[in-house]
Each structure stands twice: as C-alpha cells, then as structure tokens.
C-alpha cells in the first residue's frame, strides 16, 4: 500500500509539470505582460522597465517559465499584481470561504442523494422513482447562473428573505453566535444553488449502483435464507452499493476548495471564485497561474484519494 501511494505521488510530478507548461503557454500568447496592466498606468517608462527586469519579464518566455518553476518548487508562486501580495497568501485568504460553502453543500448532497438514490432503486418504477429522476434530469441540466438568478429574484427580491450578496451584513459588529447566524443567512442561497446543481449526479449514480447490487446472487441468497427485507437492503446491499460512491466523493474534494466560480460570482461570495474572475479581468498572470495550479493539484489529489479509499473499502482491489 505504501509503495503504491509513493509511486502514485511520483507519477504526479510529470503531470504537474505538463499542466504548468500548458497554462504558461496560454499566457505566453497574451499581448503585454503583468506590468502593462491598468494598475501601473501612472508609472514612468523607466520604472516600468525596472519592474519588468525585477520580475524577469524582459527575458524570453521559456526563461520566465523556468524562473516561475524555480520559485514554485520552493512554494513561492510569485506576487499578485492586483492584490500586491504574494499569490499564496491571496489564495490562502479566500480559499477557506470557498471551502466552508463547499463543505456544507457537499454534506447536504450526501444526506439527500444517498437516501433518495437507495429508495428510488428499491422501489424501481414507482412514483417516487420517476419523480426523483425527473428532478435529477432538470437539476443536472439547469445552468448554475440561471438557478442563482431565479433564487435571487424569488427569495431576495420578491420575498426579501435572504440577502443578495456578500458573506456578512456590511458594517455588522456582531460576534460569536450572532455572527455565525449572519454568515449562514448570507450563505443559504449560494449553498442552495451548489446543492441543487450537484445533487443529481450522485443521486443517479447511487440509484444505478444499488440496482446493480440488488440483482446480485448474494442478495437472492440473503432473501432465500429468510432475512427481513430491511436487513437485506440496508445491511447487505447498501454496504456494497456505497463502494463506488465513496470513490466518487474522492473526486468531489477538489470541488470543495475550487468552489464554483459562477455561483460565487453571482452572490459575491468572497471565495476563490470571484478572485479567479478578478485575476482574469485584471490580467493578473501570476495569480491566474497560481490559482490554476492549485486547481490542478487539487484534482490530482482528489484522484489519488479516490483510488486509495477505493482500495481501503474494497479488499478485492487490494488483492490484485
């Protein structure tokens, strides 16, 4: 097991290099550089040249990439030209807000998707099954921004129940529990959007996984030896049906941090999403590069965790 993990981590290195090169090449196509951006418009030509020299922007693109790589290997992702802070500190400031939002909605997704999927599978072709599958089709097909705008229009504008944007009431001095309540109040609508748009996939997966297990021979055996239907379903079938779902949850880990750019943008949730948007709008290339690399590394880690948990929960995999 340990050898397997070490080998997997080592194969991640060339993949990360490849990803960073591709993202860097996209930047290399852009006209101008980080110094050309609007934030430095007042600078003299000489000061700009000096800044370019400092940031190695006067070097060929390939050399710039090597400089970036050298820094990144020490954990130094460069300096954001828009926030005027180090890229890692900007990411660290905002990524946790995305994480809280993502974590809560993932918990809600698990709590809804798994029971609904199980019941839909055990009562296949019932009213409940078809209703939930119609809902799943709509939820997986509706664009997140459209759900967000509909919810804002209905809950915030018509009913004035929830705030439209932000994470806390502006100028609020609340502390402790009152502050948490205020944050929850602001979080509810983006949370709802994330939950609606991501619940369908796991629900459908759970249903088909459960259907597959129910048709297995050992379930027939369990029924034949006279076990109660509840025991058959929840003890014998559910445990096995959950295995692929656990893997699937490993893949959602990057999504926890990476957040949902569009949803966070609509609700001005101060997570990594709006930061990505601002970085792109202001051509803050070091920050863009850093965020993209974080997303890529999180995806790789998610895959790794998925594979490891799969081996942990399913002994059959380990034997191979």
């Amino acid at each position, binding site marked *: 097991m340990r050898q397997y993990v070490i080998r997997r981590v080592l194969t991640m290195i060339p993949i990360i290099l490849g990803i960073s090169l*591709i993202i860097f090449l996209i930047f290399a*196509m852009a006209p101008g550089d980080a110094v050309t951006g609007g934030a430095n418009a007042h600078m003299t030509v000489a000061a700009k040249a000096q800044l370019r020299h400092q940031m190695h922007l006067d070097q060929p693109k390939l050399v710039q990439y090597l400089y970036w790589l050298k820094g990144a290997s020490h954990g130094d992702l460069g300096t954001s030209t828009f926030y005027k802070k180090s890229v890692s500190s900007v990411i660290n400031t905002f990524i946790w807000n995305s994480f809280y939002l993502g974590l809560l909605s993932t918990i809600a997704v698990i709590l809804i998707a798994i029971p609904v999927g199980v019941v839909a599978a055990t009562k296949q072709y019932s009213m409940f099954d078809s209703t939930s599958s119609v809902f799943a089709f709509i939820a997986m*097909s*509706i*664009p997140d*921004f459209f759900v967000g*705008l509909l919810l804002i*229009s209905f809950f915030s504008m018509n009913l004035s129940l929830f705030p439209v944007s932000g994470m806390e009431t502006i100028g609020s001095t609340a502390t402790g529990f009152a502050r948490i309540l205020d944050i929850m109040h602001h979080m509810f609508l983006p949370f709802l959007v994330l939950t609606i748009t991501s619940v369908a996939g796991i629900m459908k997966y759970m249903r088909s996984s459960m259907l597959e297990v129910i048709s297995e021979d050992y379930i027939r055996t369990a029924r034949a030896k006279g076990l109660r239907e509840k025991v058959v379903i929840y003890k014998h079938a559910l445990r096995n049906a959950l295995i692929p779902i656990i893997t699937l949850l490993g893949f959602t880990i990057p999504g926890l941090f990476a957040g949902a750019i569009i949803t966070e943008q609509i609700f001005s949730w101060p997570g990594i999403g709006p930061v990505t948007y601002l970085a792109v709008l202001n051509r803050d290339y070091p920050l863009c590069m850093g965020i*993209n690399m974080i997303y890529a590394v999180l*995806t790789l880690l998610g895959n790794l965790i998925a594979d490891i948990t799969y081996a942990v929960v399913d002994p059959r995999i380990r034997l191979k």
Partner: protein
Amino acid sequence: MESKLQSGNQMEKKYEDEVVMSPAKLAWKKFKKNKIAMTGLIILVIILLISIFGPILSPYNMAAIDLTNTTGEPSLVHLLGTDASGRDNLTRVMYAGRISLAVGFFSVLIQVVVGVGLGVIAGYYGGIIDSIIMRLVDIFSCLPTLPILMMIGALMLDLKVRPENKMYFLMLIIGLLSWPGLCRLVRGEILSLREKEYMQAAEALGLKDSRKMFKHLLPNTAAIIIVSAALGVGSAILTESGLSFLGLGVTVPTPSWGALVQSVSDMDSLQSYPWLWIPAGICILLTVVSVNLIGDGLRDALDPKHNI
C-alpha cells in the same frame, strides 16, 4: 404434414424478418419505444428548427436598434419584448440558439475526433505510444476547464478577436479540453476487443493496421462513442453558456443564450425585465434536458443486455 410445412415456412419468414434488422435499426426500434427519450428528441428537433429557421422568418433584424422602444414589454408586436437597445428579443433568442447549439455540437465533434482517434491508437498499439497518450490524457483531464476558458476569453478580448468569430475558438478550445474522458473509454474498449477471435482472423488476412483499427475495431465501440457524445453536447452547451454569462465567451453584439442572461447584470433590471433573461435560461435548460434524455435513451437502446 402440410400444416407442419406451413408453420416451417412461417418460421422461416419470421427468421428473415429478424435478419433484416441492422444494429442501428434495432437500436432505433428500442429508442422509439422509450417515450421519455422520444420527448427529448422532439423538443430538441423543435428547438433546432426554430433556431435555424426562426431568424430567417422573423420580420426583425437581430441587430436592428430601435431607441424609441427600449426594454419594451412582451406584446403582440414583439412577442418577447425588446432589449435595452430596442432590439427584438425573440429574434435574438432564436439567433443565440444557433450559436449555442453550434458551439455544443461542433465542440463535441472535435472532442470525438481527437478522443476516439487517440483512444483507438493507444489501445491498438499499446506500449510506448499508449503510455505517451495516456500521460497526455492525465494532463488534459486535470486542466481546470472553466478558469482556462476564462483566460482564453480574456485573451480573445486582448487580441481583439471579432465577436462573430469567437464561437469558432470556443468550439475548438472546449473540444480540446474535453476529449480525455472519451479517449480513456475507447482505449479500454479497444484493449479488450483486440483480443477477440475476429481480430486474429483480420491479422491472418494480413490487413493493414489502419484498416484493422478503423474498419474492424472502431465500429464495435460505436455505442459508447454515441452515448458519450450525446451527453457531451449538454455539458458543452452548459460550459459555453457559463462562460458567456461571465462575459468571457461569445460577446455583444453576437448573442448566445448565456450572454443574453448576463445582459441583465443589476438586480433591479433582473426584477423589472424578466422577459430579457428568463426565456434564454429556459432555452438552455430545455436543450440540455432533452440532450441528456436522448443520451440516456441511447444508452438503453444501444445496450444489448437492456430490453424494454
């Protein structure tokens, strides 16, 4: 005796009937029985027809500005009202449909060509070629799609790409970012098909590699290609509309469904002019739902184990 002969004839006739059914016909017969999938197909065809022919039949020009009638409410003259520049909204929604659907279909076409091509080559040759292609798959499947598309969108603004040409770049980039999943599936399928007896026969006949790959192996992977292509159209349309909603995809004056929803940026106009953003949003929803229903129906219809 005679009756036996007759029943024998009948059986023969029945047998002939079954022989005539090609796999495609069989799948279509199963698909037609699936009411939900058929509903999806009918909705998609209606949306396609309206998007293609609607702008031609419409009395209004998509770009004709009428400053005397801005943000007009829906009426008999303008069925979906007019936008902030007095342009007929229905015409714009129909025209936007052309763009969004074209981006959806053609980016999937690129995805299929790249993904299937590389998947067949990797699975057939194996060895070092397979390793190289699979490492490429690993790299491309970890690229964060939306942030990269946002960067490309900003790049297009910087390079001053004409708005009407942006859709072609989007098709290309969305296609090039989404092929790894299909490539993996096809490779896995080819790996197992390669060991079948008929491939040994093909080998014995001395067929060329390309003929073996694309004439004998590829048709047997058609089912997974068709299903994942159908589902891919939906996600490509969602990606494009999200990007255009952020103002980094297809941009004004060329409309796409996502860009139309974005045109009401502030909360007040969101509330006052629902006809400007709700129709485009519903169009995206209907299109993606129907594409997903078709994909699901195709999966069942093409699965030989699945009988309706």
